[in-house]
């Protein structure tokens, strides 16, 4: 039924699409959608016309063809007869390798530098401020090139290690820094080494189990077990025991000078070290600032309240300050990991064969499949960053202050 207070019902008029705020949103969205579609249609038609003019097509068959190029550092079996697809996978693994190494190192450097920036020691504080400012304000590409130059132009050639009185000598007789890379002893896995590894893994599990047990005992009965020494003992002793009982199944193979180069051992390429350390030191400066900001974000009242409860400084740090600081530190830390992964594409500047170097570099140049290769490359990086963002969302949801 209608009452007098009801507004008169308007019939829909076309001008309302522009003038009435209720309908204007539809007009705008329609226009935007049409513009985007038109843009894509325009680009697509240009693409088709250009491809036809050049006699090309879009196809991913090149991934199955043999790649015909060598990669100097591979984590899986690869020869120049392998397919382009396998070359790309080698590149992906190399990207993940350098990103992982750089993330770990950057976190260690960043945490140390960030804590040191809050040190009561004036000299250390200023030194770390100098480190952070110097590295944050210079492009990472320049740092990569600088470290790469140290690795290739400053370090001695393998021939310098030769002779009675060589110009260079190996560190501890086992590690050689040469301009062809770093030579390290490589482990040789003899029979029975699997047992040692299993025991090692079991002892890590054991450490966690012991710490859980000790915490539970503390909460249940108030009895405080020592943590540090027993953990260390569980961590080291069983592995050492099994290692010697089985007659030392794992031995080291030392690099030796043979001919013009070192033989044996593991070679780590100079380009990998340059990329790894440049990314680590550069991103470490950013992480240091995050760590400092996170610790400073915990208000002084928290520390004082904890102290007035009678907690000792170490426990104040572990139980009160750190859990609150981590809430501030971890989100930017994860986005720094993402930056490391994306910046690792600069490998192409020093010739490290990551996915940009294989798929986006040599494969692209050999096959001429620019669109396909770059599309795949972008897809890979996009997947990584979406995965890391998803991880971050999970963490943020878990860590959000539970408000009632």
């Amino acid at each position: 039924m209608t009452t007098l207070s009801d507004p008169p019902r308007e019939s829909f008029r076309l001008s309302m699409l522009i003038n009435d705020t209720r309908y204007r949103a539809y007009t705008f969205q329609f226009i935007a959608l049409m513009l985007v579609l038109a843009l894509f249609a325009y680009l697509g038609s240009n693409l088709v016309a250009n491809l036809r003019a050049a006699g090309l097509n879009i196809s991913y068959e090149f991934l199955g063809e043999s790649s015909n190029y060598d990669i100097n550092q591979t984590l899986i079996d690869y020869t120049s007869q392998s397919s382009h697809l396998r070359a790309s996978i080698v590149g992906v693994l190399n990207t993940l390798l350098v990103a992982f190494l750089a993330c770990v190192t950057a976190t260690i450097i960043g945490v140390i530098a960030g804590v040191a920036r809050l040190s009561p020691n004036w000299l250390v504080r200023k030194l770390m401020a100098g480190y952070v400012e110097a590295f944050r304000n210079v492009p990472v590409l320049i740092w990569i090139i600088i470290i790469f130059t140290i690795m290739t132009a400053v370090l001695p050639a393998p021939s310098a290690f030769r002779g009675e009185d060589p110009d260079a000598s190996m560190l501890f007789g086992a590690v050689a820094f040469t301009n062809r890379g770093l030579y390290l002893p490589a482990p040789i896995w003899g029979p029975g080494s699997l047992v040692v590894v299993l025991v090692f893994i079991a002892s890590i599990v054991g450490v966690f189990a012991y710490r859980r047990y000790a915490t539970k005992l503390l909460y249940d009965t108030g009895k405080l077990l020592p943590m540090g020494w027993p953990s260390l003992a569980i961590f080291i002793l069983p592995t050492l025991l099994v290692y010697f009982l089985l007659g030392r199944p794992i031995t080291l193979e030392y690099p030796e000078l043979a001919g013009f180069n070192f033989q044996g051992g593991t070679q780590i390429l100079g380009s990998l070290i340059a990329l790894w350390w440049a990314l680590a030191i550069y991103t470490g400066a950013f992480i240091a600032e995050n760590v400092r900001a996170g610790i400073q974000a915990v208000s002084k009242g928290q520390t004082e309240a904890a102290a007035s409860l009678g907690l000792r400084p170490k426990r104040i740090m572990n139980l009160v300050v750190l859990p609150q600081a981590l809430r501030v530190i971890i989100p930017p830390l994860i986005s720094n990991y993402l930056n490391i992964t994306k910046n690792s594409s600069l490998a192409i500047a020093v010739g490290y064969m990551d996915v940009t170097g294989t798929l986006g570099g040599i494969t692209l140049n050999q096959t001429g499949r620019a669109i396909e290769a770059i599309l795949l490359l972008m897809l890979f990086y996009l997947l990584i960053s979406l995965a890391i963002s998803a991880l971050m969302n999970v963490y943020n949801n878990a860590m959000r202050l539970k408000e009632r």
Partner: protein
Amino acid sequence: MSDTHQQSIGYVRDSMLPQATPPASETGAVKWVRQNLFLNIPNSILTLVAIFVLYKLLAGFLPWFLNGVWDAPSIRACREVLDGDAGGCFAVLTERWNQLLFGFKYPSELYWRPTLAFVLLFVAIAPVLFRKVFPAQMLIFTALYPFIAYFLIWGGSILIPIFALLGFVAGYLVYSRFVTQSFAMGFFGGIVAAFVFWWITGLLPIEGILALEPVASRDMGGFMLNLILGTVCVSLSIPFGIALALGRQSDMPIIKWICVVFIEFIRGVPLITLLFVANVVLAYFLPPGTNFDLILRVIIMITMFASAYIAEVIRGGLAALPRGQYEGAESLGLDYAQSMRLIILPQALKISIPGIVNVAVGLFKDTTLVSVISMFDLVGMIRGPILASTEWNGVYWELLGFAALLFFVVCYGISQYSQWLERQLQTDHR
């Protein structure tokens, strides 16, 4: 009275002792050193380690720098002068400074033009950076600066920048004519008017009228290229970033999702892949026969990259505003465009300044990546023509140190300015 006390309790002092100076270990430099450097044993060890590190750094750096050779034709001549002593060969900087700053193709008799443009850049940004010091009329020069700088650096007929400027003027006239009816109408009408104007003037024959000697884009190089890319892309990406951030906040689902997909896609891939796109792929998507400048393609891609990041920063600023600001604007009866322009954006942009400056500094550093797609910016010049030349093959540290120093000066300066500005803009409780 005091007498009685003196007799009964003789140990009470009845006169003040003169004030004694504090012990030497508790004042001045000694106290400072004790508190800041040698508080306890671990601290003292840290101090000693730090002193050792500093000594090592200075012992390596100072002889190299002070002994440096500033005047020699080649690295071999340098080594002869040094005669085995430690010392840098800074002669490469005095000999090749023009290549490092301007690239190796920019005509040397025209160096005054980019230099003048660089000096004028400071005049142009001064009123933006220090609003209280400089008169507001100088902003007119700031608005004219892009056209002057284009004319100086690229040369060619003066009519090109003038017509470009007049296009903006025409757009503004149409905008101010229609904005009274509706912001959207004025905004889009202005854009259409500007494009129509440019299209008409593009048909005019203006070759060589009042022309400076033209310089092709591919001749740009050195630090000049980094500066051009940095300033152009940052200034272009701020308006795009604002638009994307507003789009992402919008309650129209289609517009929101277009912005989300664009931002997340760009932020998910490394800049280098976008530069590859600019270098090899973009040509496929343009009409057959068009030949875009590489520098222009790179500017497009870097601007897209930067606007996605700036959009996220501004979105943070928008989200940080209290809900009451939006509701207050609505309750005053302002429409969307008015409330954004007058109430929301001024506050949101103020909050976002540190983030925007971070993006700008990061972007300026990232302009070095163009050396990977064989453009000769500062890093490209060093790794390419200079280190490959027979005279200077092997002069690494002087060149890389110079590049690092240039970037450090610019980026550190910008970040210090942003901190100063943050303190200036702090209008809440101090």
